[in-house]
């Protein structure tokens, strides 16, 4: 069965899945007429500009008052920054000077001054600060609209399931839209550090940014936004829709249903115990994981909170952050993966960021950050169940170095009389071919392992998932992947160290069936997929899956393997070619 479904890749900004119709956002910097004015008109033009500044400030103050009533302190601070820009002489006075000296209209003067400032921002080496030009764009959009003395573009007619799609969505537009239901957000620019991203997370709007192929999405197109995985699916097939429909409804409505099912231990139809955990990107998601009755947090990707605005990176502050995480997690053990600075923060410097300094390599090169985080995690270990996971390990040398640092941090804590649990479990992420090949050697040095299938598949099949020309080759049913997974399981069996699979493979019924068949019994999946996977587990027959795994290991073609798996677990055949 063929389908015109296409997957666009972006970056994870705010988790959750949404199905809806695309609404193309207005371009925030719309083109206005640039006019020369006469000497007599200058005073009137300056007054017109000042009026627009006043009007904009008034709108922002009203917005702020509303936010204060709702105790949205984080958001209220963003408005402060906007108000300060409207009072900034570097901005306002320069625009007035431009109107007067160049005899141009306010719109033109605003653009010229903004262009200069943006150029200065673009020269900054600091990623976070460069993002602040977004605030400037946002203010300029407001000023330009108010100059037209018309209302801001009407937003009251959005469909209920609107997924806002735009080159960039300013944070203040989200404020204005806050009373409306927005199903999702998709943008071309921006990163998880932008104010829009911060807002989207606090409003729990599934969001993907950095999507390169926005022109392919026309207004009104049916979309699926998977914020957790950072993908947008255009013209989804019936099957995809059904899958995400289930995820979306279940996430919203049937957490209670899943909770009821969750009072029993998760097991297959034939009674084999399966351990099912949840992956989270932000500490706020702990609550949702608890509502799903997740058994454990299999993967907390700490870098998202770590690089959040206003977060502090000293041991003491991080300890406070992590203590509140384990407190919220109650009985759930939490696997904290140390910061994995991935591709997003490196793109400007390296040709091939996914092969550069990331994961443990980054931690080893930035030992101050690493030590502060390890110190905080160890100190948190006396407050709850903490497991420390090292990401993107590619050599035994790096692992030994990291373990030596952990030992040293422990010594330092003892010297400072800070309590910590001496036996905090340490784990490694198996997500590079090198780690997969040597997982038994790594296992002998640590307490547990985590299999990251997303990266593993990418590196095994030599595919850059953010590259449109190869993304379709990404296939978990490739015999190379099956052999690799089988090998990892076989290598680990004698040592008996526990391994949890935490990639996308674990969150899809067909590929999860393969994992169970190969002998993996602990899976960790995104929150959106949790209720569905919990139910899927109880409908699987472990004995049959073991036989199925033997069969597919002999097969040669990914499409045939996938189709066989799907048929045998009672799913529709795939739409893949």
């Amino acid at each position, binding site marked *: 069965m063929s389908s015109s479904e296409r997957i666009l890749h972006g970056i994870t900004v705010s988790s959750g899945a949404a199905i809806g119709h695309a609404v193309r956002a207005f371009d925030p910097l719309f083109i206005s007429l640039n006019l020369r004015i006469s000497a007599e008109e200058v005073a009137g033009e300056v007054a017109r500009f000042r009026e627009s500044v006043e009007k904009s400030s008034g709108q922002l103050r009203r917005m702020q008052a509303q936010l204060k009533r709702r105790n949205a302190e984080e958001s209220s*601070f*963003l408005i*402060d*920054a906007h108000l*300060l*820009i409207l009072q*900034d*002489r*570097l*901005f306002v006075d320069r625009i007035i000077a431009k109107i007067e000296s160049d005899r141009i209209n306010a719109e033109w003067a605003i653009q010229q001054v903004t262009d200069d*400032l943006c150029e*200065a*921002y673009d*020269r*900054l*080496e*600091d990623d*976070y*600060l460069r993002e*602040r030009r977004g*605030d*400037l764009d946002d203010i300029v959009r407001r000023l330009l609209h108010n100059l037209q003395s018309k209302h801001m573009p009407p937003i009251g007619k959005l469909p209920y399931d609107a997924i806002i799609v735009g080159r960039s969505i300013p944070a203040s537009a989200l404020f204005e839209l806050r009373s409306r239901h927005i199903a999702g957000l998709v943008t071309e620019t921006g990163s998880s550090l932008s104010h829009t991203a911060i807002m989207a997370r606090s409003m729990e709007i599934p969001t993907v940014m950095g999507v390169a192929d926005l022109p392919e999405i026309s207004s009104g197109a049916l979309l699926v936004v998977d914020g957790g995985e950072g993908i947008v699916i255009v013209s989804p097939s019936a099957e995809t829709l059904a899958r995400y429909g289930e995820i979306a409804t279940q996430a919203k409505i049937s957490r209670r249903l899943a909770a009821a099912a969750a009072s029993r231990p998760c097991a297959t139809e034939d009674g084999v115990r399966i351990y099912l955990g949840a992956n989270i990107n932000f500490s706020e998601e702990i609550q949702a994981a608890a509502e799903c009755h997740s058994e454990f947090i299999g993967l907390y990707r700490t870098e998202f909170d770590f690089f959040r*605005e*206003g*977060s*502090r*990176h*000293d041991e003491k*502050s991080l300890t406070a952050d992590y203590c509140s995480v384990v407190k919220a997690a109650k009985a759930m053990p939490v696997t904290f993966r140390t910061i994995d600075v991935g591709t997003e923060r490196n793109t400007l410097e390296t040709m091939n960021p996914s092969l550069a300094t990331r994961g443990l390599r980054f931690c080893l090169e930035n030992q101050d950050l690493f030590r502060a985080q390890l110190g905080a995690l160890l100190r948190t270990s006396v407050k709850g169940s903490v497991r420390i996971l090292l990401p993107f390990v590619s050599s035994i040398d790096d692992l030994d170095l990291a373990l030596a640092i952990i030992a040293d941090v422990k010594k330092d804590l003892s010297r400072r009389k800070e309590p910590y649990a001496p036996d905090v479990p340490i784990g490694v992420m198996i997500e590079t071919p090198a780690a997969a090949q040597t997982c038994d050697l790594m296992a002998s040095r640590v307490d547990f392992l985590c299999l990251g299938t997303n990266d593993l598949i990418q590196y095994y099949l030599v595919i850059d998932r953010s590259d449109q020309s190869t993304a379709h080759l990404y296939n978990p049913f490739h015999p190379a992947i099956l052999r690799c997974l089988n090998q990892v399981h076989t290598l680990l069996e004698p040592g008996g160290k526990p391994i949890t699979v935490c990639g996308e493979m674990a969150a899809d019924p067909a590929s999860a069936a393969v994992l169970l068949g190969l002998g993996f019994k602990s899976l960790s999946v995104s929150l959106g997929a949790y209720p569905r996977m919990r139910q899927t587990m109880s409908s699987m027959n472990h004995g049959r899956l073991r036989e199925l795994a033997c069969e597919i290991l002999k097969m040669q073609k990914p499409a045939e393997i996938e189709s066989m798996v799907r048929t045998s677990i009672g799913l529709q055949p795939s739409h893949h070619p």
Partner: protein
Amino acid sequence: MIERQIAIGHRMGLHARAAAKLVQLTRRYKSEILLSRTDLNSGGGNSSEADARSILAILLLAAGHGSTVAVRATGADEAEAVDCICEYLKG
């Protein structure tokens, strides 16, 4: 005129939140207050002086954690202004 050097103690440097707070602090004083980076041999950033009342100028200093800046105030309350701003920048 009073001038004093100080290392930025805020973990994130003079980022949006810290910069906004700084601008709000300077409003309490009548003196003209200027900030400039004094450690620019060692990397990027903006070398020109920044009006401490301008959030855009402060952000453009790109003064990260540990960078040093000179705080210069001129006016009736220059001493209090420098004390207060330096205290704040210490983090």
